[in-house]
């Protein structure tokens, strides 16, 4: 087990009150496997990963729970110890590679720096490792690119550079925060292929943060669906697509355009995500849930359902009974029915 997150909570104190960005989130990632964390903006998916990396540092933030990385507890650990792990044993890539790379330093400098933070090697050695890694991620004419600045590369090339920089020290865990969102569709597929190849080669565990279920289907082994700072469904990737158990996941699936679909319109999820300042008392998804009337006694509005096992390895939060869910899925043709 590379990463084990237990009951992770992240709170931010703001002038408007306490923002509960992440609430009791737990997951595990095994060596060489990929966990996709899926959710819309503000669902806490990015914040939870930044917290794992020790990058939530503001004096107004509070992190509780447990994060075990290779068996080491990171929550409450000496920041200096966590810093040494960052970029070495665990690494992260971000959504927009243009803003994530420093505009004033050359590609070669930025990669060599990543090597030299963690390894006591000479500049020349660091640069040759950088060149090697850039070749590996498919950058053409590396020698020339090394002396170029991020703005001189294309979006896809920049993300390759980011990946090279993240993997240069051979981390065991890579957190990829929407790695393809800012890229052209054709380039997206290339980047995903690259991630898959590198994962195979290095045995890196990947936490993939995304809202794109196409990317999930492509890369993930396991999926954690987040909504309003909480995990609402957690299952192997096939189950999420074939046996989804939670109305929010259904909504996500219904929002994917399908070539085979007969109707011309997509079904968006009505309403907007909850404010993390004033969380609803009951189920976080209740205000937007189409099926809450089927649950007797206003339970959805009053009580937050537990994350309960539906089958082996599959958990979901929902007050609907299993037969109700099956009926709805059959009627609406959600998943494999």
């Amino acid at each position, binding site marked *: 087990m590379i990463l084990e997150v237990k009951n992770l909570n992240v709170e931010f104190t703001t002038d408007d009150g306490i923002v509960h960005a992440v609430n009791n989130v737990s997951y595990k990632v095994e060596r060489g496997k990929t966990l996709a964390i899926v959710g819309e903006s503000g669902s806490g998916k990015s914040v939870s990963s930044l917290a794992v*990396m020790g*990058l939530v540092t503001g*004096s107004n933030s509070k992190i509780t729970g447990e994060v075990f990385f290779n068996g080491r507890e990171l929550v409450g650990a000496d920041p200096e110890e966590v*810093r*040494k*792990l*960052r*970029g*070495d044993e665990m*690494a*992260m890539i*971000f959504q*927009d590679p243009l*803003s*994530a*790379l*420093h*505009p*004033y330093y050359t590609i070669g400098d930025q990669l060599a*720096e*990543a090597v030299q*933070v*963690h390894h006591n090697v000479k500049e020349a050695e660091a640069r040759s490792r950088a060149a090697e890694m850039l070749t590996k991620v498919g950058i053409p004419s590396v020698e020339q690119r090394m002396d170029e*600045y991020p*703005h001189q590369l294309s979006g896809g090339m920049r993300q390759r550079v*980011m990946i090279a*920089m*993240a993997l240069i020290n051979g981390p065991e865990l890579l957190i990829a925060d929407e790695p393809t969102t800012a890229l052209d569709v054709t380039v997206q597929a290339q980047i995903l292929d690259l991630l898959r190849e590198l994962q195979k080669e290095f045995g890196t565990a990947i936490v993939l943060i995304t809202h794109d279920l196409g990317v999930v289907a492509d890369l993930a082994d396991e999926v954690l669906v987040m909504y309003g700072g909480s995990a609402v469904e957690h299952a192997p990737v096939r189950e999420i697509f074939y046996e989804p158990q939670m109305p929010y996941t259904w909504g996500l699936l219904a929002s994917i355009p399908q070539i085979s679909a007969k109707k011309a319109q997509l079904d968006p999820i009505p309403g907007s995500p909850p404010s993390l300042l004033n969380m609803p008392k009951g189920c976080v998804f209740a205000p937007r849930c189409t099926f809450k009337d089927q649950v007797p006694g206003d339970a959805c509005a009053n009580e937050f359902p537990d994350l309960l096992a539906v089958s082996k390895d599959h958990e979901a939060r929902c007050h609907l009974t299993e037969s109700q869910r099956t009926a709805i899925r059959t009627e609406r043709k959600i998943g494999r029915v």
Partner: protein
Amino acid sequence: MFPYIVRRVFVMAFMLTILSIITFLLFNAVPTDPAMLTCGKTCTPDIVAANRIRLGLDQPLYVQYAEWIKGIFVGRTYGSGSATFECSTPCLGYSFRNGEEVTTMIVDALPVTLYLALGAFILWMLIGISAGIVAAKNHGKWQDRTIMGVSLIGYSLPVFFVGLLLLVFVVVRWNLLPYPDYESPFDDPVAFFQTMLLPWITLAILYAAYYARLTRSQMLETMGEDYIRTARAKGLSERVVFRKHAFRAGLTPIVTSAGLDLAGLLGGAVITEYIFSLPGLGRLAIGAVTEYDLPTITATVLVAAVFVIVSNLVVDILYAAIDPRVRLT
């Protein structure tokens, strides 16, 4: 980088040309007759007419402009016959009020302003930038609040108020320093520093306050950038993140501001020079204005504008040195 500099230099030459034309037209737009002004007490229309010819004012404007420019580059000769006198290169004109070549007056005043501006500049950049960094690093804590509070006061106080206050207390009441009396640093370094200290502080208080605020907001903005998060994700220590990744990026607007502020002062820190009786460009300009000394006014305007344009060039080059993206455009 080199083509970029060449391009900027060309732009600068073009701007200087435009500027000299505007300055020259300014000279001619003033509703006084220079020939009249040079006439003296016993003035007759004949003398005015003779003066007009002697000063070349009877010529069309473009000829006068050409003469003026020629004077700057190769010197010029006023009048003819027995009333001839030479104005040597670079000739910015002849001040009949003072009976002196304008160039000589400028050359005498320039070092004073230069020392004043540069001294204050060094002082305020050191104080302002370090205070701004301390405030940014301790964002929201008491250090930040103290620095911002003090700088707000410093920024609000007008130069004449601070200057007079310092003069009254440090010199008059407490006798800590002798009354300002400018001496060249090469003749009497002690007197020079004693005179310049208060003017430096006066200017530095205003500008340091501004630069502290500017540096702080720049650093806070830069620290929120995505590439700073990347730098942290690489495992760089906060020190390296701040010094190598954030500071350089936050520096660009500070460089721009600094260049323009320094240029503004080099054109003459009028109020400060006046309060501390410094014979610099600012005092020269004010004196010229009150006496209708047109050639001197034109020359001081030109010199001040040249400083602004040249410092713009320096800022542009520094900008390109800091930010590689600028080099391509």
